[in-house]
């Protein structure tokens, strides 16, 4: 997407006030943030939310190590429809404001327990969101976020090869093998 188009979309979506810090920030940077719809700090924010949902576990890096935060911005920028982009960006902006209001700091600066509480709150909001309020009612932004986090993680090298079993060339097929709690095949 052309930067000018992206900026005009953003101003339509988020209004002028949120645009200002973004411009100031990018103006100070020598390297421009590659995703014009997002703020430069969003990579860390998204990685931290993603890590809360898919953390590092024994022998398997989490979503942050897989840099899912970067993938989400690329995927939302290029593959989401404008309607879905707006849902996600509005939701993210609202979350950031809430963090400031409620905790006086960013999601990233919260304690692990606080992060868990925030995500649990998002799960509750999603469950209460009237998705069946009418045909075409948009899903809660967290639904988009969670589905993109899971997609981004399990198709990443880290996710596919450590959380799952990635066998690019099986060589043969077996209809029935015994199953004793192993990880799933990645493909």
């Amino acid at each position, binding site marked *: *997407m052309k930067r000018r188009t992206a900026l005009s979309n953003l101003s339509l979506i988020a209004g002028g006030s949120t645009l200002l810090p973004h411009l100031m920030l990018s103006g100070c940077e020598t390297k421009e943030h590659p995703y014009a719809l997002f703020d430069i700090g969003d990579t860390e924010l998204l990685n931290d939310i993603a890590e*809360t*949902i*898919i*953390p590092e*576990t024994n022998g*398997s890096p*989490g979503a942050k190590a897989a840099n899912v935060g970067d*993938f989400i911005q*690329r*995927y939302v920028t*290029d*593959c*989401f*429809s*404008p309607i879905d982009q707006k849902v996600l960006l509005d939701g993210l902006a609202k979350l950031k404001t809430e963090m400031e209001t409620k905790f006086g700091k960013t999601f990233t600066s919260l304690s692990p327990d606080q992060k*868990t509480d925030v*995500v*649990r709150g998002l*799960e509750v909001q*999603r*469950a209460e969101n009237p998705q069946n309020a009418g045909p075409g009612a948009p899903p809660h932004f967290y*639904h988009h976020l*969670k*589905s993109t986090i*899971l*997609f*981004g993680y*399990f*198709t*990443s*090298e880290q996710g*596919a090869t450590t*959380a*799952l079993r*990635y*066998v*690019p*060339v*099986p*060589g*043969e*097929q*077996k*209809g*029935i*093998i*015994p*199953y*004793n*709690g*192993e*990880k*799933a*095949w*990645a*493909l």
Partner: protein
Amino acid sequence: MEKTFDVIVIGSGISGGWAAKEFCEKGMKTLVLERGRDVKHLEDYPTALKNPWDFEHRNRMPHQVREANPIVSRCYAFGEATEHFFLKDTEHPYIQEKPFDWIRGYQVGGKSLLWARQVQRWSKYDFEMPARDGFGGEWPITYDDIANWYSHVEKFVGISGNKDGLETLPDGEFLPPWEMNAVEQHIQSAIKENYKDRYPIIGRCAHLTEPKEVHLEQGRGQCQARNLCERGCPFGGYFSSNSSTIPWAEKTGNLTLQPDSVVHSIIYDETQRKAKGVRVINRLTKETTEYFARVIFLNASTLNSNLILLNSKSDRFPNGLGNDSGLLGKYIAFHNYRGEISATYKGYEDTYYFGRRPTAVMLPNFRNVYRHDMPFKGGYQIHFTATRKSWQRGIASDQFGADFKESISKPGDWSIYMMAQAETVPKEKSHVRLSDTAVDEWGIPQLITSVDYDENDELLLQDFFKQGSDMLKKAGCENISTRDTGQAPGLDIHEMGGVRMGPDPETSLLNKWNQLHACNNVFVTDGACMSSTGSHNPSLTFMALTARAANFAVDEMKKGEL
């Protein structure tokens, strides 16, 4: 360059490749014209070995590409890994009088690079049913006319399958079959126990489960169960023109393969009263060249073969070559893929599977087989698979964190997906024709599609929903749910007809050897020749008809008849 050949083959896809192979093997100097670019086996498969994370969007297409190309974007196989083998909507426009998703692959090999590779022989009932029950066109051939040609093709292509001994789906020349998993075997048993007329089998597909000498000679090797076929196979594990027939034809020294050659029309010689050649426009330079041959095989894919004949106008044939009956472009049909059923199954949690199988379980048609006893015409073949749920079940879950990650990293419960591949009735009003005003980039009239569903399709769909659900219920499945995808004709990529075969020149275009009744040195052996659609996959029949017609043509040429 040489302009005169023994044979010109228009199109290099699954049937054109077969024509090239048969003619070149028999010593005929053969020109194959392909409208798209060249795609060389192995060399031109840029994504074949890529991992999911190597794709910028993990194999999903950007929104702008989907918006600009709504038709091709609806195809299940269209993604970052395969987009270079699909024609974008804007590259060759057509006019949809009624919605029709025309999915095209314009390159050497055509859609044989992209096909789903399921190859069931048609039974005698598939050929006899239309005439017996009064729909579609009467076939001028029976199963016995084509059985040996099925064998001929199967041996060379390499087809995995089980000898099931079914009258409704004859056995062929098989390599070892793929395996069903535990739940598929369970459903298979339940269906066999509950229904005398229903016998699910493992699908038969064009994959080398155990290559034979003839396959190794082609430079192909064993299928590695990757199931990334549409990218082109680095092992030559599945059959395509690129991996098989075209290099085979090239080895004879008799093949001239010419990409970037858009066929404008077939040239009719009014004095000789036969076709004498083909008018070609270079895709890139737009320069026009004429090529000549004794025999012309038209294998441009169903709708493009119709288009070329409609555009081949002469004093003798003002309405398109061979079109004395006025039926050219009519009786277009397809397979109805609208019916889907999903379900779940509890049990067999202690079993899993390994490798990615390139086929499904198939239930051959059981409707109207021995007599017409249903309120609809034709039949349907059911495909189903059982798989254990993936991490995707985590999206709807309200859980997150370490335990959640652990849980969704393991295989979930079993889920079942079932679909119908249903016969549709060819109708005179279902047609394609040329636009009087709109032309494409090469000055060739655009095609208008006017093909639709009818009441028969709705009845058949409801029967599938009822029967499919009942069978799954009897197998102990739960959460059985039916879905009408509502998709347009064409997305099945099984469009057939328009230049149908038949015994009577008044009601058909082609005779039993696929020759135009009215111009016997032009043969049409792709999907356009089909008198009816049957309910089983059609590509194997296109290949067998092509090999049969090519060998007939060679004999006639040697006798001086052609």
